């Protein structure tokens, strides 16, 4: 392959004095002074959160108000810094959602440990844990930085659901039970 050698243009006298460059630089910075600032004045102005943002992990309910977590503890196992601690519990047989069988008795996420990796959300088979928009977690004690179950549901709220997996299961089992009659 032919190599094309480009001659570097020798610097002119003025360029060697460095003065035109200084003046050029001053012009650039002067233009910047006249430009509006891009500062976001934080506590008053809030940033717009992009889609798919990984904020504080939260627990969510389905549109019928059923808590989605079944305390399978997959998230607890995968969490790299071991921020999650779950105490599994049973759903009483009298409850309407008794066929789901399990729900967490207590669910704690230690936000001093969490690294916002999103693995818990990825691993959850029930789509029960979501990293949502909240980006600012503050507290004055260590205990305050641990989100308990109530707080997690309060932060999480309700998210739309496209499967209603447990409702389908219930309907299916009822249909099958009916078929044997």
């Amino acid at each position, binding site marked *: 392959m032919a190599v094309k050698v480009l001659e570097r243009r020798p610097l002119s006298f003025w360029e060697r004095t460095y003065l035109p460059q200084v003046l050029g630089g001053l012009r650039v*910075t002067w233009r*910047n002074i006249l430009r509006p*600032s891009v500062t976001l004045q934080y506590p008053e102005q809030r940033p717009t959160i992009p889609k798919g943002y990984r904020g504080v992990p939260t627990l969510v309910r389905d549109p019928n108000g059923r808590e989605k977590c079944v305390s399978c503890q997959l998230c607890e196992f995968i969490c790299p810094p071991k921020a999650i601690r779950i105490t599994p519990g049973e759903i009483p047989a009298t409850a309407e959602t008794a066929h789901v069988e399990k729900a967490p008795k207590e669910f704690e996420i230690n936000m001093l440990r969490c690294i916002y990796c999103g693995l818990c959300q990825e691993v959850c088979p029930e789509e029960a844990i979501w990293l949502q928009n909240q980006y600012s977690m503050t507290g004055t004690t260590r205990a305050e930085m641990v989100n308990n179950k109530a707080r997690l549901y309060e932060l999480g709220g309700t998210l739309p659901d496209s499967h209603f997996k447990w409702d389908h299961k219930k309907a299916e089992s009822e249909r099958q039970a009916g078929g044997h009659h």
Partner: protein
Amino acid sequence: MENLLNDLLTSPGLLFVGVRGVILIGIVMTIAGYAVLLERKASAWIQGRLGPNRTTLPFVSWIPLIGPFLRLGGFIQPAADGGKFLFKEEPMPSHVRKIYYVLAPIVALAPALATIAMLPFALLPDGTALALCKGADVGVLLMFAVSSLGVYGIALAGWSSNNKFSFLGAVRGSAQLISYELAMGLAVLPVFLIASAPGSDHGLNLTAIVASQEGLWNIVRQPLAGLVFLVCIFAETNRHPFDMPESETDLVGGFHTEYGAFKFGLFFVAEYGHMIIGSSLFILMFLGGWHILPGIPEVGTGIIATLIGLGTFFTKLVLFLFFFVWVRWTIPRFRYDQVMRLGWNVLLPLAVANLVLTFIYYAFAG
């Protein structure tokens, strides 16, 4: 009243000297504080930020219009900064040479204060200069001599800190001072030449130099000298792009690496003091001092003229300080060898050539 003012300015009495000293420190600290504010604001604007705009005091924020203006302009920030420096803990590293370590910031600041005391700011109605220390007739020579002493503070700080970075910073500072002092002195000689040419009644002091620029400012008559002097004052004040003694990227913090709290604050004020001195000297020697425009030395008469002159001088000073800041946030720092080369190989020959040409011009044409 007139008498009291006169006493205040010239009396050698201990009380008046003390009052003058307090006034001087007050003025310098205030200007330095607001120079820092200017620096922070201007750098913010250049970088697309807003700069300090939160600090305020309760009773100030209650004033409509002015309150928010003071807050957004950051005008109370210098007080907060100064207060912070005052109330911080003063750590004393265990490996320093204690006496010299404490002495260094004082040695750095004292010459700056002494020089500012000699600076004339305006012309009084009786034709003498308004300065805190009147009648220093050798004027500019004494100023150059005293203000250069500031580098002893840097050298002392670097040595007593017992830290290689500080020491390197100190060595660089002194080498830089020596290299640029020569070019600086030679660059201003033509200005004196013009001011005290045969037939003119102007002397060596700064008032006379300002008076000699009545028709035309020296920057027009001596552009090359002006340029050399300008570069030299940047180098002498250790400002970007010549801040070799500090040079955060390669020397951590340079000579003040080991300093904190108010001792660091003193170095800081000294740097801004030197900026004020450099700017003032440039304004006095090349930009017509308290003259408003070339050809219009003063407006009004008596005390009015003095006040307008004072205002003009301070406007020029603020603009020049802004220029210092503007350059700092524009040009990257030179390498150390480049600084030395520029000083010895470029500025010194230029200054000498300029001086010789001026000699020749005045010998044959003048």
